[in-house]
């Protein structure tokens, strides 16, 4: 499979509402992220065992996700429970969708293929979501541009910014009194999602604070897209 070891963020928690699903990629592989009716998040291979259609095109009912094409239904463990064309059939338990370990931390949904992943992403306390930013660049390039072009703090004067990894795909960006957490999702070698939350209370950041950092994400994206030679320049600088 294309998912490497360790934890990978796949969405902001708030982007996947109960009883909804979305498709995503890790390392070029296709995954479905869905939340059942009770609120538990799941990350599976995005492929229906029947004819290989994308499960992310389907829909969630209660604790089942149903494939759009012929309505096969899968329970939260990934096992097929119902085949509409054969309503009386006891579905063989071999019909399953590969499911990944899924946790929620730092306002993001994380997946891992490891049966016992080393450490779950640390819980930073209260966070306020900003957005998931989708960028046509490698994860390394994205990090370099973030480091070279940090946001201004929301509350105070511009101070030195610091970017440091706090997990395999989780980075902490300190800017003055503010802290952003950046989840890095390697969609493919040249496409990256940056899941961004503010570490801090909603009381402080809700509304204006979110908009402040949202404006930075647009400028960051613009910077990446308007400098086609960014990769080359940055790697020269890095040398």
């Amino acid at each position, binding site marked *: 499979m294309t998912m490497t070891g360790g934890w990978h963020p796949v*969405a*902001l928690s708030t*982007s996947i*509402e109960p009883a*909804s699903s*979305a*498709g*995503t*990629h890790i390392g070029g592989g296709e995954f479905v992220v869905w939340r059942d009716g009770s609120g538990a998040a799941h990350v599976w291979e995005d492929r229906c065992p029947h004819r290989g259609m994308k499960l*992310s*095109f389907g*829909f969630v009912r209660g604790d089942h996700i149903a494939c*759009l094409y012929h309505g096969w239904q899968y329970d939260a463990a990934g096992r097929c429970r119902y085949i509409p064309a054969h309503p009386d059939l006891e579905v063989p338990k071999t019909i399953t969708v590969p499911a990944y370990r899924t946790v929620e931390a730092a306002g993001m949904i994380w997946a891992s293929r490891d049966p016992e992943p080393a450490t779950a992403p640390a819980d930073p306390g209260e966070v306020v979501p900003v*957005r*998931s930013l*989708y960028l046509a660049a490698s994860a390394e390039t994205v990090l370099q541009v973030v480091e070279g072009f940090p946001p201004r703090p929301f509350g105070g004067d511009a101070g030195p910014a610091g970017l440091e990894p706090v997990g395999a795909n989780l980075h902490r960006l300190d800017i003055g009194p503010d802290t952003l957490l950046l989840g890095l999702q390697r969609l493919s070698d040249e496409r990256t*999602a940056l899941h961004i939350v503010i570490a801090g209370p909603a009381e402080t950041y*809700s*509304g204006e604070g*979110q*908009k402040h950092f*949202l404006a930075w994400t*647009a400028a960051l994206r613009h910077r990446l897209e308007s400098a086609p030679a960014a990769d080359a320049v940055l790697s020269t600088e890095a040398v």
Partner: protein
Amino acid sequence: MAGIVFHNYELDECCYKVRLALSMLGLEWQTVAVDAFPGSEQVSPLYLAMNPLGSLPILKDGGLVLHGAETILAHLARSRDPSGRWLPAGGGEFAGVMQWLVFSAASLSVTVRARSSALFDTPGDEEAPRASAAKALRIMDDHMTARGFDGADWFAAGHATIADIALFPAFALSRDYGVDHDEYPALRRWARRFRAVPGFMTMPGIPDYH
């Protein structure tokens, strides 16, 4: 007779905008089916007399013959919705609706080209319209992300307006032209809300989750 007569082609997303509006406003209307594909009936002399642009939808209302989905939406809202919710008269909300209607008719029309070249094999490059379409959807997703921080669920007002109706088909049908919903989380949430508006209906290419 002051009834509404709607010249419709089922697979046309601009006709779908009008069907949505008629249904969500709770109106009664009469449909005339147009053989747009493969018949190209909309460019026959009979239809060119109603709309010299040779496009659908066309709506007749009493003595009016209107073409262009956004115009028709505005007419229906203004003439048939006494509450004024679908086309608010107030400054900011009215301006917001107009801005997104124009966006829908202009910038977002690239999605119509992308879809028709993908579905009906109309000649032309497929990749360029797809990339422009993805960029237009991104503008919408950026807007709805920011709206969310103001606690607003809809494009131009605190409730659904004809702007939401005009914008929905391009997003809901994007898989027809090869753009997935993966990278538009704010639009996914908005589309779920839109589906719950009374009078919502689907069209071919937009699944009905029953």
